[in-house]
């Protein structure tokens, strides 16, 4: 990705960090996946850009529910 197209995804990454430092910090690490949901979001935003990346991160968050198996699930 070029520097210009990377800007929106970096905005997304900044939002994830905002979450991490505020509400994320309030709860002990609870993710059942590895990498954790927030880490997954950062990686997928970097790799796929803002739209596709955040869609993938959103889908991951939905999968991170008490009925799923969890486990090793890297960004593809």
């Amino acid at each position, binding site marked *: 990705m070029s520097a210009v197209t990377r800007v929106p995804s970096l905005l997304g990454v900044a939002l994830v960090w905002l979450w991490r430092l505020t509400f994320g910090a309030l709860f002990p690490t*609870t993710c*059942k996946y590895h990498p*954790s949901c927030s880490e997954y979001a950062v990686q997928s935003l970097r790799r796929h850009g803002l739209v596709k990346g955040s869609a993938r991160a959103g889908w991951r968050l939905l999968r991170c*529910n*008490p009925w*799923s198996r969890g486990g090793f699930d890297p960004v593809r």
Partner: protein
Amino acid sequence: MIVSTIPIFSQLEDVMKHVLNFFHSNIGLPWAWSIVATTIVVRVILVPLTIRQIHSMQALQKHAPQMKEIQKKYKQDRQKQNEELMKFYRENNINPAASCLPMLLQLPVFIALYYTLKHFQTNFHVGKHTDLSFLHFIPSIQAHTTTHWGGYVLLVVYVASQMASSFFMMTTTDKMQRTLFMVMPLFFVFIIARFPAGLVLYWVTTNLWTVGQGLITRRLVAKTPAPALERRSSRTPPKDDGSSGNGAKSEAPSPKPAPSASQRPRQVRRKKKRTSRR
């Protein structure tokens, strides 16, 4: 504010307005207690999720010794350690205790409550003499927490309850993380002090719920038989009182003390190496 013009936020605020209004007008609770009631309703809705969590926590406790072994084995490589743990969960059908969704579900409630309290006057057309106090020590749930001494009391209760709830929610055995989460509320209190007191009330209530839940869970877990840890102590030979013919077999573990004793200094040395590398 720009954020409040985003449609989803105003919709959230609308829903919260109706819920609070229901508790205040239909059930007759004071405004502050309506917030407490709303919090309890949210937590009751989340109960099915927490029951799942309790079950998986029990499963985790059962397999704790094996997991500790994995953690020890891959001590140097955190990434590998996590991957192996996840594999172990899969193989043993364990659902790791918590997940992100229940935690995330509380965020919309929080945002909704924030905006509802912010626009309290216009939302509910309250006059100057409307009772917005809570338990006689907080004069107004709408004002900033630090505007009255009662707010400071609430903040202290918040820190205590947050620490206690972190204690019960904690699933990691990592010491660094554990201390981090215990210290975190001390920093967060500076941010939360700027919020309306009603919002802090929400946090305190939800934390106290978590603590209560944790206490009940601990009792329930304690009732189930604790997993018998297989101790490899070599001092006590396996019991075989009746069968005298097995006496020769019981000699097998006896040569163990020597290697375990010799391993100790080695472990210390390894630790030193690791610290020097990083």
